């Protein structure tokens, strides 16, 4: 579609998005009110909304969100430090890069969350397991993007430093790292989302609190409106995170 066609309708993009969501919610609501959709397993949006209010008023959702946020943030921080260092190593050592990069890529596409029992044995039934799983989950994209960014620095920029006789350290910190930063940051953004997914996933599995556990618990009690409220809230939080980090990235890299 051309941009002219879009501007002719004079509907801003956000409004078009909202309309689609409202339309789908409307079909859902009507469907379960009139019995086309089973209202027990798929409660109508209005019921979900009231359940959400209930969760907020009881304070369940804020507590769960705080814990999940703490776990995901810690996991992503650890994943970033280890992942960028590992990416640097794969970039620096040609042999290691050739040998292991495809493993990391494979790990990035594997459902790592399934090895949680192993972590449960290592770290015990406590938040450390969840944080470790989150950190592990967010590492592959961070490693791959860090390596890609460092590999992809244009040779001419490095030659500028070489012509100035820069020390290896200055060459890295003054040229190579800032040049690779947009790609590295991109990896961290993807990694953060992977961390949230893994953290919520493991919370769901091992009953230690957080949004994932809340969803599992409400489902077990057949409180489906509240369970859906929890699921939609997790989706909402992820989307907000994605958009916020996108903003942050644009702001940080506004000069390029």
């Amino acid at each position, binding site marked *: 579609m051309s941009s002219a066609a879009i501007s002719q309708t004079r509907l801003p993009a956000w409004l078009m998005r909202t309309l689609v969501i409202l339309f789908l919610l409307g079909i859902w609501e009507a469907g379960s009110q009139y019995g086309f959709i089973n209202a027990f397993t798929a409660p109508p949006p209005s019921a979900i909304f009231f359940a959400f209010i209930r969760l907020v008023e009881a304070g369940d959702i804020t507590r769960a969100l705080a814990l999940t946020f703490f776990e995901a943030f810690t996991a992503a921080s650890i994943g970033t430090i280890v992942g960028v260092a590992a990416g640097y190593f794969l970039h620096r050592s040609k042999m290691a890069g050739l040998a292991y990069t495809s493993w990391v890529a494979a790990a990035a596409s594997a459902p790592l969350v399934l090895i949680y029992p192993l972590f449960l044995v290592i770290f015990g039934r406590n938040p450390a397991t969840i944080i470790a799983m989150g950190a592990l989950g967010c590492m592959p994209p961070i490693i791959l993007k860090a390596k890609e960014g460092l590999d992809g620095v*244009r040779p*001419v*920029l490095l*030659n*500028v*430093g*070489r*012509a*100035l*006789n*820069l020390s290896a350290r*200055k060459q890295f910190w*003054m*040229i190579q790292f*800032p*040049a690779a*930063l947009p790609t590295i940051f991109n990896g961290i953004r993807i990694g953060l989302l992977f961390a949230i997914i893994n953290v919520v996933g493991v919370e769901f599995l091992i009953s230690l609190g957080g949004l994932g556990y809340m969803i599992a618990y409400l489902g077990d009690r057949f409180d489906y409106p509240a369970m859906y409220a929890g699921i939609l809230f997790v989706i909402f939080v992820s989307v907000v995170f994605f958009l916020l980090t996108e903003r942050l990235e644009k702001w940080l890299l506004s*000069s*390029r």
Partner: protein
Amino acid sequence: MNTVTTNPVLRLSNVAKTFVTPNGSVRALDPVSLDIRQGEFISIIGPSGCGKSTLMNIVGGLLDDYDGEVQVDGVPVRGCHKEIGMVFQEESTFPWRTAIDNVAFPMEATGVPREERLSRAKDLLRLVGLDGFEQRFPSELSGGMRQRIAIARTLAFKPRILLMDEPFAALDEQTRLLLGDKVLQIQQELNQTTMLITHNIAEAVQLSDRVLIMTFRPGRIKQVIDIELPRPRSSKLMGGEKFGHYVAAIWEDLREEATRGLLEMEGARSGS
């Protein structure tokens, strides 16, 4: 040919280079010997694939593995030398730095205090005609402006010898002419010894004291032409009879090499 009265600031003795590739070795450069005086502007012109960029990378110290010797002030050098600055053909400004921070970069790397480096960078930006653009990022500037930033950045650490590898190749003809004038003006102001790699004949005549014509691979110096046009010069010279005479003389020599290069390149392409 000019006789060198003072000691050369830059001397190449039998500099040669053979690249070893999986398909055998390629002789890129036959032995080249050359003396350049302080303040002299020389251009090296040749067909694509004559090894002129190889020569520049050797002199600039980016290529270590070569035969022969490069001397600065009579002292043999290997690797990058602080008296030699390079301007590259490709866009080489740092996109994460503003214009002034780009120019200040070499001074920042060598620990010049902030105040001093910013004031010097400001002067250099004025020298290349970019005052008022200090706080702009490269992405906000045109290709010609970015190349001027790169030139100013190279001048910032006061190299006595300036190497330029087709610095205007990516620019349009008019920008190229105006930028050539700028480079001439700077070179005359600073009495900068300059070695320019180019494939543009008019540019070589406009700027140089001497034009060195290189043969097609393996490159060697085929002919040296002294350009005896009065200085200070500018692109206004281009209409002159003498200018045209030099261009014709250089093309006369270059034509044969360019033809040979073209045939060989096309042969290689159809053969593969």
